[in-house]
């Protein structure tokens, strides 16, 4: 078990290093460095050169890279030129809103996905099963940003029952959370369906039936419980996908989270914020993936043994 955790941890560290390095390379390849962007087009060459010197941009690339790695370790990314304050503070301030949105979407996806999956898996091959399979396939293919705009058109502009943008209240949360949950619901439903369909043919289900339990009791007490393991896995391992989706959904609904901050920072070439946000997102993904891995390994000894090989 220790070996397993150490291995996952090493991959996590490698991932952060990879993300940090990739962003460093992209920032250096981008037209216009931090100094020119911060000072704007009217700055004189001398001013730019002075700022470049202060920021250390006139040093050799390797020196810049190493000092940047040092900054990352200390989680110090410098000041955002747009807000004039540490980029990390800016990013951490936006973090709770993103956590709220992704958590709400996860809850919706798990509840709706489990219900759909059980309905479909209960009788594999039935009309209901095929209907659910078709619907979930469609849900996975829908472009989330467009669905979000359609929700705004229907619920905010036509029916005027929900606000279209902003954050803070529960009403604001509904549309973005549902939009973000759609593809994830489909995924949970498909996983649950195959789990339930498989469990339905197990001997203990027959035993439960012959004990005289009703079909509902068999489903809730025996089948669903045993099909939950793959669902837990998927939820944990899809955190990255969910955060990626949140970045786009937040922009659609002007949700004041990490994602909308990242997109506007990329658009404004606010490199410090871009770097801080990507590192924080990578950290989240790695910590949550590790948690899911550990829970899984605890539940299923085969995973532990495979990791040793």
């Amino acid at each position, binding site marked *: 078990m220790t070996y397993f955790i150490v291995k996952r941890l090493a991959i996590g560290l490698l991932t952060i290093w990879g993300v940090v390095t990739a962003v460093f390379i*992209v920032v250096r390849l981008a037209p216009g460095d931090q100094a020119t962007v911060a000072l704007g087009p009217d700055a004189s060459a001398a001013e730019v050169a002075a700022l470049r010197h202060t920021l250390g941009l006139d040093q050799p690339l390797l020196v810049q890279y190493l000092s940047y790695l040092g900054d990352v370790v200390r989680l110090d990314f410098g000041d955002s030129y747009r807000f004039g304050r540490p980029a990390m503070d800016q990013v951490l301030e936006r973090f709770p809103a993103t956590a709220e949105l992704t958590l709400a979407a996860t809850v919706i996806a798990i509840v709706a996905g489990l219900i759909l999956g059980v309905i479909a898996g209960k009788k594999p091959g039935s009309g209901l099963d095929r209907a659910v399979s078709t619907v979930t396939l469609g849900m996975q293919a*829908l472009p989330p940003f467009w669905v979000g705009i359609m929700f705004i058109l229907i619920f905010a502009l036509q029916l005027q029952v929900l606000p279209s943008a902003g954050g803070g209240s529960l009403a604001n949360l509904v549309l973005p959370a549902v939009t973000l949950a759609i593809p994830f619901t489909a995924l949970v439903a498909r996983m649950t369906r195959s789990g339930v369909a498989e469990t339905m043919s197990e001997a203990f289900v027959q035993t439960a039936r012959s004990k005289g339990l009703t079909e509902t009791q068999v489903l809730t007490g025996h089948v669903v419980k045993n099909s939950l393991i793959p669902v837990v896995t998927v939820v944990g391992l899809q955190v990255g996908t969910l*955060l990626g989706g949140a970045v786009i959904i937040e922009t659609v609904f002007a949700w004041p989270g990490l994602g909308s901050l990242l997109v506007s920072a990329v658009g404004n070439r606010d490199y410090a914020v871009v770097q801080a946000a990507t590192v924080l997102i990578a950290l989240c*993904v790695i910590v949550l993936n590790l948690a899911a891995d550990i829970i899984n390994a605890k539940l299923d000894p085969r995973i532990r043994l495979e990791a040793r090989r």
Partner: protein
Amino acid sequence: MTQSDILLTEAPGPVAPPARRRRRRPLAAIPYVIIGLYVLAATIGPLLIDYDPVATEVTERLLPPGSATESGTAWLGTDAVGRDVLAQVVYGARTSFIIGIAVVTACGLIGVVLGALAGYSGGLPDAAVSRTIDVLMAFPGILLAIVIAGLLERGMHVVIIALSVGGWVGFARLSRSITMSTRERDWVDAARIMGVSKAATLKRHIVPFLTGSVVALATIELASAVLSEAALSFLGLGLPPHIVSWGQAIAGGREHLATAWWITVFPGIALTVLVVCIGLVGDRLTRRFTRKRD
């Protein structure tokens, strides 16, 4: 569980399953027909419809679908600067196909080559490829694409590169795993004993067994590349303004959602229908090549 996981659950054996007579389902052809229509619109459409993405016609702005304009009837209406929405849908289809196909080709080539080499060689090359896959799997690909496409010079090639950076991983994982099991087969041993070179063994005796699964995965990846390109353009981070794209058209209509819904709705429907159809085809191919029970 991603698509490559599903394809990995049961790697196909060397012998194709005997063709089973299936109940003919005429509905099953629909996705193929619709994709065919899109391809037709993307290739021939631009020849029939004249469209200048940077021209503006202020007198003809925000016209509802079916309005008459100077250059003919605007069947799907016009946008905020008087450009025809139907033309945007048709030209956008071309952009989506070009980028989607380029991304899938690049990812497929890189992924299959790296995956097959890693799976066949083992040792250090395998470790290097596997760890790179682990790293890229952990970080959401769309975020990497946003950062790359947003910070670098704008252009079609940058979008293609941005989407390919994380896209090859699925192909590599799939190819690596199938190669590892095919490597143990007798005919590969036989080739090795006869002194066939490593490159030729890979090419003649291993890669052919990857084809089916790789084609299935490529279909799914095409849908996701089209979707990601639209998302990038929607955020205003992908293509330069003179290249027409569904994502840009959708974003352009957002301000006028209350009064001119058609600017946003029609490109979105075009995108959704295409992605759903490619997804349906991909799902069917995946099921066929993993030989799962239907």
